[in-house]
């Protein structure tokens, strides 16, 4: 039966594509540097009329190497001042001197000012709400010392760099793994539910094996999703598991699927096991949708995408991230399908051996060759 031509990996193209894509995401996602950002300011408050010298500590910056460092404080689109003296101490530290005018353009106090630093290597670095200026003398008519021209002549960032986010820092790379894992988990669960419905329609036992295998891989992905999420949470929220609705619902969802595994393990009667677990998996999948998408959205949550927090899109997922994020989803789905197929073949061989050894075993309903 097994001659030379048959000994090769079936569907090698998509399996190889999955591996290569994942390798690309792994290497690229880890190697591509972050854009420059500001980590620390020596002072964050000032009064109008002050002369200010701020020491700015940057991240991934090249202040010393760059020839043309410039900096601005910006209040709104029509009001900004340029730093009159910029002195780089080293690559990551720079002293910026500002003379804040007496007259402020608004009546508010304090006024939040955005700090912009620009050079030809790092491009423009924007730090919103960097300095809060206490408004001592309100004179809205004399805003002459604030420059009114729009800022425009910034340098472009060189090469591909991931965006710098203050609370995320380097962990922004986790987008490719944590978020993509949940996407892939949903795809696999969907495959599992599809085969569960197929099983209930046809009674074909191979469909049950397929459904269970994909669901098992999806559970593995879900566990890994929780794990990568916990690591991410430790860095951005300071704790592995904040008491947050989205996280707790995800944990409940996983409990539901662990119960699925227990349900499958609790009986050896193939027919009953297949029927109950197929029904349960459809039930659980539909219960999963309110758990992960509806309830976290109607409550307050720290997690992006819930309780008013933005999720994918906007500033957080820029084109450089997309360059790795979408391939990562595809790669993980392909790898998951591969793992699922290996499980299917393993199960099928196991069942066949079992039914060969024990002749008085319950016959397997409607078995065809699953390999």
């Amino acid at each position, binding site marked *: 039966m097994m001659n030379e031509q048959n000994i090769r990996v079936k569907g090698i193209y998509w399996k190889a594509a999955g591996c290569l894509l994942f390798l690309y995401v792994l290497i690229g996602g880890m190697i591509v540097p972050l854009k420059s950002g500001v980590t620390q300011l020596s002072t964050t408050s000032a009064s109008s009329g002050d002369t200010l010298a701020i020491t700015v500590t940057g991240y991934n910056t090249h202040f010393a190497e760059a020839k043309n460092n410039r900096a601005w404080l910006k209040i709104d689109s029509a009001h900004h001042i340029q730093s009159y003296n910029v002195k780089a101490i080293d690559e990551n530290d720079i002293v910026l001197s500002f003379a804040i005018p007496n007259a402020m353009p608004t009546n508010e106090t304090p006024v939040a000012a955005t700090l912009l630093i620009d050079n030809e290597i790092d491009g423009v670095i924007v730090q919103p709400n960097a300095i809060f200026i206490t408004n001592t003398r309100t004179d809205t008519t004399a805003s002459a010392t604030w420059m009114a021209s729009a800022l425009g002549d910034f340098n472009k960032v060189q090469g591909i760099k991931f965006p710098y986010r203050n609370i995320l820092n380097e962990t922004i790379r986790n987008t490719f793994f944590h978020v993509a894992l949940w996407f892939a988990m949903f795809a696999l669960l969907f495959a599992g539910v599809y085969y569960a419905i197929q099983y209930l329609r046809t009674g074909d036992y191979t469909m049950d094996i397929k459904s269970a295998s994909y669901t098992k891989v999806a559970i593995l992905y879900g566990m890994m999703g929780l794990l990568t999420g916990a690591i991410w949470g430790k860095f951005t929220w300071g704790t592995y598991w904040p008491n947050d609705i989205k996280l707790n619902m995800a944990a409940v969802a996983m409990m539901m699927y662990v119960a699925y595994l227990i349900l499958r393990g609790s009986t050896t009667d193939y027919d009953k096991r297949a029927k109950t677990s197929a029904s349960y998996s459809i*039930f659980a999948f539909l219960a999963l949708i309110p758990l992960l998408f509806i309830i976290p959205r109607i409550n307050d949550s720290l997690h992006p995408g819930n309780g008013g927090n933005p999720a994918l899109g906007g500033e957080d997922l820029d084109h450089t991230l997309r360059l790795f994020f979408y391939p990562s989803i595809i790669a993980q789905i392909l790898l998951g399908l591969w793992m699922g197929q290996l499980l299917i073949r393993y199960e099928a061989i196991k069942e066949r051996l079992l039914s060969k050894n024990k002749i008085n075993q319950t016959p397997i309903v409607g078995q065809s060759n699953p390999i």
Partner: protein
Amino acid sequence: MKDLAVEFRQKYAIAGIFLFVFVMVFLVFKAYGTINAREWSILIWVILLFTGLNAIIKSFMQESSGTYLYYYTLIEPIELLVSKIIYNFVLLTLLFLFIIGLMFVFVGFPVKDLSLFSIASLGGILGISAIFTFVSIISATDKGSGTMMSILALPLILPIFLLLLKTTTVSARLISDTSVYDDVMLIYGLDSMLIGLMIFLFPNLWRS
């Protein structure tokens, strides 16, 4: 629908469950001493959940396979399912009223917005009884144990349980929420989804 009458004929089982509830509430009352409104709203649902679980485990497992065969020849599976859900719903509602009554006697009744409380609670109980029925069918075909049922049921219950906690605390005026009727809608939405799904799935399970 005659099922309902058949079930209620087993009076001693029902009486046992009510005694169980009584003991539970009394235990909680003695353990806590005084119960504030927040604890009250949590406790009624926890007590209902566990006593209800206990009560419904019996409803499918008590009967022998001979009875099932008799039902199978006699009535449509959907009819049986619906009557089971109705029976469990009635049973849980009675249990719930009993718990509320006992809690009223022992610790009082903090609910201010009675209409919200009753509407949300009835929807929640419907959902809980639907899930319990579904899970008891699965574990009954499994010759299952009570543990199997709790393992399967409790994670499935959780969304409804959390929504119920929220609506109960709102109706006790512990927190104010203008969009609480969205939650009530969500409870009924979940109910209809679960029951619809069960009607779709039950004939497959029943045949075995």
